[in-house]
């Protein structure tokens, strides 16, 4: 079952001196409940691609189709988890999670029940009355995930969600995400620049090139979960993908030295 179809997508940004081709001729189809990682060095347009699926930016050409409908605005059918968490700091944890449900117009009782269940699932119950500033980074990201789960979007778009976390917190949230994905049957598009993270999580890894952002390579990952980052197959994949990502990284670095980065 096809969930997201991207055809001929292009995005050009106009900077003072030049045109930047962030995305060029992107063609990608993502199946229902597939977990796809967009992998690449910074500046390769992977976040731009995610933002186009989310409806935050308008494509210069081409289109993104979700469930047969063209994307032209953000919407609760595609929940976004941001690297910077983007929790509303003036709301407590439970108000943050309830926000999307209040907009949907659910009754107070339904909201409380749903929020309570999610907070329990994500081990956030005892923090429900805290404000975001009093939470650790990992905790904040759990709240952000709960906020998206609350509105029950079939698609979750995650923009380097664990990039700012320490290694241990990161691993435990990755495991939690895999569990959530099994339990809630989500289609997930996950942006990362960590090769290991991509192999650990994804069904399919899409490696992107640095400017213009195109799809360089696609890799299915068939290893069973839980995956062992020390295993032979894991490391074989890591070596292959590492070489590809490094090529793009070097192009980026050369551009930066020339002052175009």
């Amino acid at each position, binding site marked *: 079952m096809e969930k997201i179809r991207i055809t001929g997508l292009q995005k050009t940004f106009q900077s003072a001196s030049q045109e930047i081709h962030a995305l060029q001729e992107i063609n990608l189809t993502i199946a229902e409940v597939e977990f796809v990682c967009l992998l690449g060095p910074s500046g390769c347009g992977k976040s731009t691609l995610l933002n186009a699926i*989310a409806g*935050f930016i308008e494509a210069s050409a081409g289109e993104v189709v979700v469930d047969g409908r063209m994307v032209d*605005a*953000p*919407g*609760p059918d*595609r*929940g*976004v988890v*941001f690297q*910077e968490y*983007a*929790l*509303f*700091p*003036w*709301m407590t944890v439970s108000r943050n999670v309830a*926000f*999307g449900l209040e*907009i*949907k117009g659910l009754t107070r009782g339904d909201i409380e029940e749903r929020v309570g269940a999610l907070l329990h699932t994500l081990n956030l119950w005892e923090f429900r009355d805290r*404000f*975001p*500033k009093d939470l650790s980074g990992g905790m904040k990201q759990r709240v952000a995930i709960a*906020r998206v789960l609350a*509105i029950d979007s079939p698609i979750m778009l995650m923009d380097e969600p664990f990039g700012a976390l320490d290694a241990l917190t990161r691993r435990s949230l990755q495991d939690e995400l895999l569990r959530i994905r099994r339990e809630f049957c989500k289609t997930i598009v996950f942006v990362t620049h960590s090769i290991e993270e991509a192999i650990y999580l994804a069904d399919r890894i899409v490696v992107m090139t640095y400017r213009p952002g195109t799809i360089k390579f696609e890799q299915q990952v068939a290893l069973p979960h839980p995956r062992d980052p020390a295993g032979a197959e894991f490391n074989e994949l890591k070596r292959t993908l590492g070489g590809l990502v490094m090529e793009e990284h070097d192009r980026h670095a050369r551009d930066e030295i020339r002052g175009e980065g």
Partner: protein
Amino acid sequence: MFQVRVIVRGTAVPLLTLLLWEGICRAGLVSAIILPAPSAVVLRWVEWLLSGELLVDTLGSLTRVSLGFLLGAGLALPLGLFMGASPKVYEYFNPLVQVLRPIPPIAWIPMSILWFGLGNPPAIFLIAIGAFFPVLMNTIAGVRNVDGIYLRAARNLGAGNTVIFRRVILPAATPYIFAGMRIGIGTAFIVVIVSEMIAVNNGLGYRILEAREYMWSDKIIAGMITIGLLGLAIDIGMNAINNHLLRWHRGMDS
């Protein structure tokens, strides 16, 4: 231990100043009209308090500050929200605001008397002007500086424009708005003293000017100190309200 040391340090300089001041006056080095002794100031203050006049003056000044501030901030807040949220409204109003803003409230005194005569109306008008601009400028800045990521997150969760304005932009702007109100009430308090010197016949500002006509220096200083303490009390009160309403924001880096 640490607390005690801080208190000792904090009281040493004021106490020494008072002692020196009292000593100079007792020694007869300056005339009591130029500089009355602190003891005389305290006695005068107690006398003023017991006569009941102090309470009337303080209440008079506070009422004017409150009414003027409510009027000024009450007009500035909606205008600031509109100007901050809509570039078009901003373009319409900004030039006028920029021209009027640098005019000190004091410069409005002559026109305010011509327009409103004497008594409370011109005083409240001047205080309102004093409070208006700080609240306006900060409200505009607060709305304009809402981090785009909150707007993205809200839209993503299905929020429309009304919900975003009410539940995202407004709360995100409150730290700025409150900072503006704090500046505004400070300005209002300065303006109330000045306006009482010209237009009305009670209030702390009126009382110290009246005292000057009789050369009651001790009462002038007693009045000044009362004004200082009242200003401090207002600021502490505002701060307490801020801290409570913005408890989500305390200690946040942005």
